[in-house]
């Protein structure tokens, strides 16, 4: 019996030794390929979800097409300690020098834990969380202002709705989501100030059955244009169209899912953003820690207008869009109150989409039916 145990132990030892040797033998090869930049992308869900992750993966695909760049990707990584392991394995085993952990919840505490341990690696987090006085210099955040995209969604919605009620299926009440809800309503109110927007929070970024239930609940309340901010809008788009409601898309182009009911959609345009950053890094430059842009900067684009969009809607959409493309469009304009009656901005005060004050948004504007907590 002792003999047997001993031999197994020896076997294990031998295995570990071989593994270590193999690791030693392969590591020196990596700097030999040093001209190559390895870039890692981490997604919270599947990268072909018709949504948030697909938008990032389309950006990653553009990076993959660049010369001298190797892309490693991992999908379905939860916002837990699992993402720290993914990042560390990309750094230690794949030799990644630039990481794009693309989900909001990856930043605190996960990137904040891994970044100080790997000072030579750059961590680019999608979300609005990095701040110069609190966070490591080798981390940074970038994000698009997609609010104006939802504003334009709202304009098509405002023209399409007959019940004057539009609906929004939202994941969690974080500033970016609240901004989208507010912008969607403000766009619709630019058409008709009597329109209200009902919001339902599902509490999670991806929860198919609950998203379907939320969409049904909105349709039951008479909302006849529905949009969303969840990771994969596929379920919301299909369910809403199935109930006869019009749909505005989000994250990526969902028009193939409901060609008749799809009005337009606010899409990310990460390909441009990512190739720029990778180019900078390859040229030995420093990527700014804080990168932002909206429709007018090419960070965001709109889906082509669908067949259900009327001429009046099309005209107003194009007019407002060309106004936005000039830059500096004011989205939250006073006098404006939140839906509890508190003043957000008095007359004469207004916020442009890149105003830092909007990144701590914690209110829903008047006309939105719902609550942030």
């Amino acid at each position, binding site marked *: 019996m002792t003999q047997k145990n001993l031999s197994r132990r020896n076997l294990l030892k031998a295995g570990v030794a071989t593994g270590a040797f193999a690791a030693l033998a392969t590591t020196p090869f990596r700097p030999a390929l040093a001209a190559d930049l390895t870039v890692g992308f981490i997604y919270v869900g*599947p990268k072909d979800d018709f949504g948030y992750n697909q938008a990032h993966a389309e950006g990653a695909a553009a990076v993959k097409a660049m010369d001298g760049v190797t892309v490693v990707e991992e999908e379905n990584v939860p916002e837990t300690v699992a993402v720290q392991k993914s990042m560390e394995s990309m750094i230690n085993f794949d030799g990644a020098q630039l990481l794009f952990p693309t989900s909001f919840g990856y930043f605190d505490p996960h990137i904040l834990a891994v970044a100080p341990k790997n000072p030579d690696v750059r961590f680019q987090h999608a979300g609005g969380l990095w701040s110069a006085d609190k966070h490591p210099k080798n981390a940074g955040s970038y994000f698009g202002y997609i609010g104006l995209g939802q504003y334009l969604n709202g304009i098509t919605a405002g023209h399409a709705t007959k019940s004057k009620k539009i609906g929004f299926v939202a994941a969690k009440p974080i500033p970016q989501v609240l901004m989208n809800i507010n912008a969607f309503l403000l766009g619709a109110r630019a058409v008709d100030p009597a329109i209200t927007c009902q919001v339902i*929070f599902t509490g999670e970024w*991806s929860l198919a*059955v609950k*998203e379907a*239930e939320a969409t049904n609940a909105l349709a*039951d309340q008479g909302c006849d244009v529905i949009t969303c901010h969840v990771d994969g809008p596929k379920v919301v788009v299909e369910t809403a169209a199935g109930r006869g409601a019009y749909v505005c898309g989000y994250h990526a182009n969902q028009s193939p899912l409901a060609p008749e009911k799809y009005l337009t959609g606010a899409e990310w345009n990460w390909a441009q953003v990512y190739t720029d950053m990778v180019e900078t890094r390859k040229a030995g430059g420093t990527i700014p820690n804080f990168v932002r842009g909206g429709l007018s900067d090419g960070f965001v684009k709109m889906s082509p207008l669908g067949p259900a969009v009327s001429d009046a809607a099309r005209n107003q959409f194009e007019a407002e869009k060309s106004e936005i493309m000039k830059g500096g469009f004011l989205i939250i304009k006073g006098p404006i109150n939140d839906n509890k009656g508190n003043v957000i901005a008095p007359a004469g005060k207004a916020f442009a989409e890149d105003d830092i004050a909007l990144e701590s948004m914690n209110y829903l504007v008047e006309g939105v039916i719902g609550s942030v907590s």
Partner: protein
Amino acid sequence: MGDTDLGLWAVPLAMLGGAIRVSTPFLFVSLGECLTERSGRINLGLEGTLVFGAMSGYAVAYESGSAWIGVLAAAGAGTLFGLFHGWVCKLPRVNDIAIGIALMLLGMGLAFFFGKPYVQPQAPDLPAISFGWWSEISQVEAALQVNALFLIGIVLTVAMWWMFRFTRVGLIIRVVGDSTDAARSMGLNPNKVRLLATGAGGALAGVAGAYLSLYYPGSWNEGLSSGQGLMAVALVIFARWSPVNCFWAALLFGAAGALGPALQSVGFSSGYYLFYAIPYVLTLGLLIAMSSPNRAIESAPGELSITK
């Protein structure tokens, strides 16, 4: 037909609709698990079977153009998973709970792997039967869109109750579940019975998955299941191993799941995380209310490894 402002009536209506729409996967998985556990085995792998069933059902429906062939494929895949579980557990000193967990992870992994090309395409949906034709109110009509699988689930529930109660097959399963020794002395082969019961249970879990991917919410995605397969295992205990109770429990969970969104839609918008926890609070409350320190769980199969 028009949109009517329902006011607070929207909540019970949404719960009714939710009970019909959301309960079917719970019903099928819990019926399958009920059958398996009645034979004295516990299969914790049904979550994996469900996810694999969802994927294979969707894939086959897309390739063949028929949702029903997809359902059959999902049932077939589920049977294989069940039979595999039953076969492994037949080997001496194998723990059925551990194998179940391993199979759960295997099923999900395989489904994610093979399901990759099917996230984007749109497969045909299962048909729904409209029981709301009499109503003028479009919301009522929408709530009463009943999928054929739900009706099949009701028939199965009654059939299973009848089988356990009145038939020879039911008696055999119960005997095997209650005492291996008694079954052996009657000349029965407990392993064979359990193998078949686990296989049939797996088939039902596969169908539950097909319902998710082919009807509601109706698309294949890696985040499709939110633990319905795991919850159904708890449902069976909650339902005291009775198929009819499984049906009521599934309805309850479906209705409770619809409560959160419906309450937000009529204006009870704060504290939605709390509403979403209601099904679990409810289960916990009922289990505590029904438990007793003085006696073991009634009607639990005697050979079940969790109650032994």
